[in-house]
């Protein structure tokens, strides 16, 4: 396959056809000071074998969670990915990154999306799910836009417990549309109901909460929901889908739009992406949903089939008035999530969630026994928690790296005011031996 599809003869023919002498003449309209006039300083071409060696040398510098004991979290988790997932999703019938452009001829892909939507809706306790979005952050920002469109109001309250990156994405999405975002402060690591009460009013389009929040803590979602609805605002949440093996689903606490990051459902960490944006809502908001939606129907002979439905929301029909500019989904990552959920089933997911809960609490208890280490917050948590450390978290992270332990996330660069906060995530993959080894290695920092 030629990687440079135009030969010299091709280029000459094209230039002749449009009536310019050479490539330089084609660029004549670009002001000279904007042109890059030097030669590109690129190395000489390499053979395939040389390229392979060069790339291998670089990839060997990468460290993956397979090489270490990882306590990293913050939205990207080291859960176990059963081999069956890769086996199924790498089948050529399925292996596509996107919803197909001629969707109805790809019945298998549409059925997968339909099954994905059905499982996600059931897991979240919501009426309807879309075919997925890019990641948890963009799903949450799209939910904010839905809320603004639905309520006609232009102010969004976002808990500071929402992932700092997600908050940035929300701001990026909203600022061009003159939608105001305001943070709701935390109190002891969870959203302050007092601050929420002061800030919420009838101009509020939505209140956005992450549950469990970025710091791992559970939120008072059952108390927040009625407060939001009293003000005719929408309740929007971001949820760790694994946590729903043990926690109540968003539908049970009256959430209007439920979102989440689906990487944890059968997907590896993928160096930060591609991930899976989950978005589900009440049925009455379906025409405001971004992205694609697959539906089931019957053909002229009464046989079951699948279609993309509610397409009038989308930009190929609605043009500039489309609900969103997202016109595809994370088909492959959604497929992995679908296989994962089907493989584990209800009981499997409960077991994974239970193990996460037990592991994280075991580790938290053990770390607390060390002098100078303390749980930062009294709130209940699921699989992630913050400890305050006797030395700077960065020092701990750096010193444990050579021991093949990823200690967690240093919270000092974020806006939590936690200079000595280390965010530790514990999945079902962590054995007691691994956790004990981590605790043992932390002893060198005791004070």
């Amino acid at each position: 396959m030629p990687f440079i599809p135009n030969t010299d003869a091709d280029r000459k023919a094209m230039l002749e056809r449009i009536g310019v002498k050479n490539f330089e003449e084609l660029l004549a309209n670009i002001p000279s000071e904007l042109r890059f006039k030097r030669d590109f300083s690129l190395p000489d071409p390499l053979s395939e074998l040389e390229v392979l060696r060069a790339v291998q040398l670089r990839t060997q510098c990468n460290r993956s969670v397979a090489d270490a004991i990882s306590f990293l979290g913050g939205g990207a988790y080291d859960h176990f990915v059963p081999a069956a997932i890769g086996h199924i999703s790498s089948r050529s019938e399925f292996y596509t990154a996107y919803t197909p452009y001629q969707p109805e001829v790809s019945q298998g892909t549409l059925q997968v999306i339909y099954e994905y939507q059905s499982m996600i809706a059931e897991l979240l306790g919501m009426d309807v799910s879309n075919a997925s979005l890019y990641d948890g952050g963009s799903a949450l920002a799209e939910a904010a836009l839905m809320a603004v469109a639905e309520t006609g109001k232009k102010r969004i309250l976002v808990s500071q417990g929402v992932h700092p990156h997600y908050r940035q994405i929300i701001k990026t999405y909203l600022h061009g549309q003159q939608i105001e975002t305001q943070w709701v402060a935390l109190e002891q690591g969870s959203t302050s109901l007092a601050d929420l009460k002061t800030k919420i009013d009838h101009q509020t389009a939505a209140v956005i909460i992450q549950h469990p929040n970025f710091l791992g803590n559970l939120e008072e979602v059952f108390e927040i929901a009625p407060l939001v609805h009293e003000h005719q605002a929408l309740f929007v949440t971001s949820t760790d889908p694994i946590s729903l093996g043990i926690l109540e689903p968003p539908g049970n606490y009256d959430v209007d739009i439920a979102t989440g990051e689906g990487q944890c459902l059968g997907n590896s960490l993928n160096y930060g992406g591609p991930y899976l944006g989950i978005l589900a809502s009440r049925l009455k908001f379906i025409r405001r949903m971004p992205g694609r939606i697959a539906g089931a129907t019957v053909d002229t002979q009464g046989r079951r089939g699948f279609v993309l439905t509610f397409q009038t929301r989308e930009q190929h029909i609605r043009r500039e008035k489309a609900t969103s500019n997202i016109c595809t989904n994370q088909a492959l990552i959604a497929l992995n999530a679908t296989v994962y959920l089907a493989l584990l089933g209800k009981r499997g997911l409960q077991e994974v969630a239970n193990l996460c809960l037990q592991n994280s609490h075991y580790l938290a208890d053990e770390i607390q026994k060390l002098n100078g280490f303390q749980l930062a917050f009294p709130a209940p948590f699921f699989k992630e928690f913050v400890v305050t450390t006797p030395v700077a978290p960065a020092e701990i992270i750096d010193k444990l790296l050579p021991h093949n332990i990823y200690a967690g996330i240093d919270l000092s660069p974020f806006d939590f005011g936690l200079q000595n906060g280390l965010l530790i995530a514990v999945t079902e993959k962590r054995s007691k031996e691994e956790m004990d080894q981590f605790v043992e290695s932390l002893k060198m920092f005791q004070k």
Partner: protein
Amino acid sequence: MEIPKELLYTEEHEWVLVDDTNNIATIGITDYAQGELGDIVFVELPSVNDEVKQMEPFGTIEAVKAVSDLFSPVSGVIVEVNTLLQEQPETINHDPYDKGWMIKVQMSNPSELDVLMDAEDYKKHIS
């Protein structure tokens, strides 16, 4: 195709029926418009007390494969919305001039009616 004589029309295929006694305008879309759209599956309408402006969108109408904005023939304040259309939007296909009406507007400037077409002009507009 039905084009009732007592109505006024916009180029965007809305009709308006004016009640001279109270300056309330009843608004819907024409028989021609419903035929062009095909099976109507959803209408999004404003709420009572919302303001509308002449020839600005007041809602959207959605058919199976198309969606269009609805333009208000007159300016004013919404006094009534046809709630039947939320559950049975296909009423617009069956009965665009009667049961398929969409909104009633208390007109703020009845002289705006002067720019609208009568049945004769509208017939020419769509032919």
